[in-house]
């Protein structure tokens, strides 16, 4: 792919999966995080995933869909639950990237940001690896 390949892949796969999904809601029912998310637990599962499809189609999504996407911890049990054999976990991952602003929009959910990540990893590497290992392994 050319420059911008990741954005293009996100758009292409979003469109493909949004087209294939029937909004039956079985993925929402299977998710172990729903019970922890009051707004999602109270909503109709088909409506929740309908909001996710809206995000995949460049829409704003619904509050319930944004809460569901935010609560995704990548348990992956949604994929075997799908009667259409869609990779629902990948669909949620794409929706997660979109609502966090991956395609240039303003983030619509809280984004975990750790500006010290790179420096922290390097410090730990210097604490746990020999100089020779750092030279070869990093």
């Amino acid at each position, binding site marked *: *792919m050319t420059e*911008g*390949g*990741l*954005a293009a*892949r*996100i758009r292409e796969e979003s469109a493909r999966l949004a087209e294939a999904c029937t909004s039956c809601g079985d993925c929402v029912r299977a998710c*172990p*995080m729903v019970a*922890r998310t009051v707004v999602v637990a109270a909503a109709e599962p088909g409506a929740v995933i309908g909001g996710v499809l809206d995000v995949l189609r460049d829409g704003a999504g619904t509050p319930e869909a944004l809460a569901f996407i935010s*609560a995704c*911890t*990548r*348990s*992956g*049990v949604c*994929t*075997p639950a799908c009667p259409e054999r869609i990779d629902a*976990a*990948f669909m949620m*991952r794409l929706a*997660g*990237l979109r609502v*966090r*602003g*991956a*395609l*240039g929009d303003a*983030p619509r959910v809280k*984004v*975990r*940001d*750790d500006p*010290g*990540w*790179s*420096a*922290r*990893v*390097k*410090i*730990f*590497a*210097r*604490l*746990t*690896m020999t100089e020779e*290992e750092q030279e*070869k*392994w*990093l």
Partner: protein
Amino acid sequence: MAVTPVVFWYGCNMARHGEIIRLSTRIMEAVDVAAEPAGGPGYCCGSPQEKNARIAEGMGRRTMEKFNESGREQVVTWCPSCHMNMDDFMAPVTPPAFETLHITELLHARREMLRPLLRHPVKARVFLHGHLGFNGRVAVNDHVSDLLGMIPGIEVVNHGLLMPGHMCSAIAAVPGALAEAQRATLAAMAETGADTLATIFHSCHRETVALERGRKFRVVNWIHLLAEAMGFNYTDEYKVWRNAADPRAAIGADRIAAVGDVAFERLVEPELRRPAVV
């Protein structure tokens, strides 16, 4: 069997656990796999920058180009996030000149080579810390259970508890979820009489080692157990530091000075001094 040269892509946050990288490499060598470790920010999968596809793509592309230039036909992953990012985004965007497989797949496939090398009994009743996620792509929970079950003296208890998420860093972001998972783990360990909690992934190990405090069981990574059975010595320094009353004293002033006292205080010390979750 001819030696297979591979890249061992250990990820970034595994830098906290240098001994696991070292032991993994030795274990792979023992089953005729010459593993060249590669990781840290210079081999990023892009996930820390997923809020910006352009930046994430650049990070992933740089990593792919290094792997392609390595000439090695296999990249062996450790981190489930890296592995899934490779499958879902990196390889489709930058075509790979290599095959990707997870370290549990590699060692499980070579388990009959590994079995006679597990000569040192490890007396332990092991509860495996498994997650629901990633296991649908690679059967990590079964693979690790099978491998640990080959160690003389080890009994892997069968409980069925699996945590949400693909590893603990994912559920740590959801208020209360990690504490709930750890309480469930403690209850399952008591129910099964386990004396050893074996983690699979680095972020789980990082979040779980503090459970040892005041309790009569030990927390180890599955690689630690294989290493013990093979007679390899190691020290889990991260666990020592995390559970020390004074992490600075446990690490030592010279080592802290070598990495920079200010950086240590700002970036590392808060993590090591964080209270246990439960």
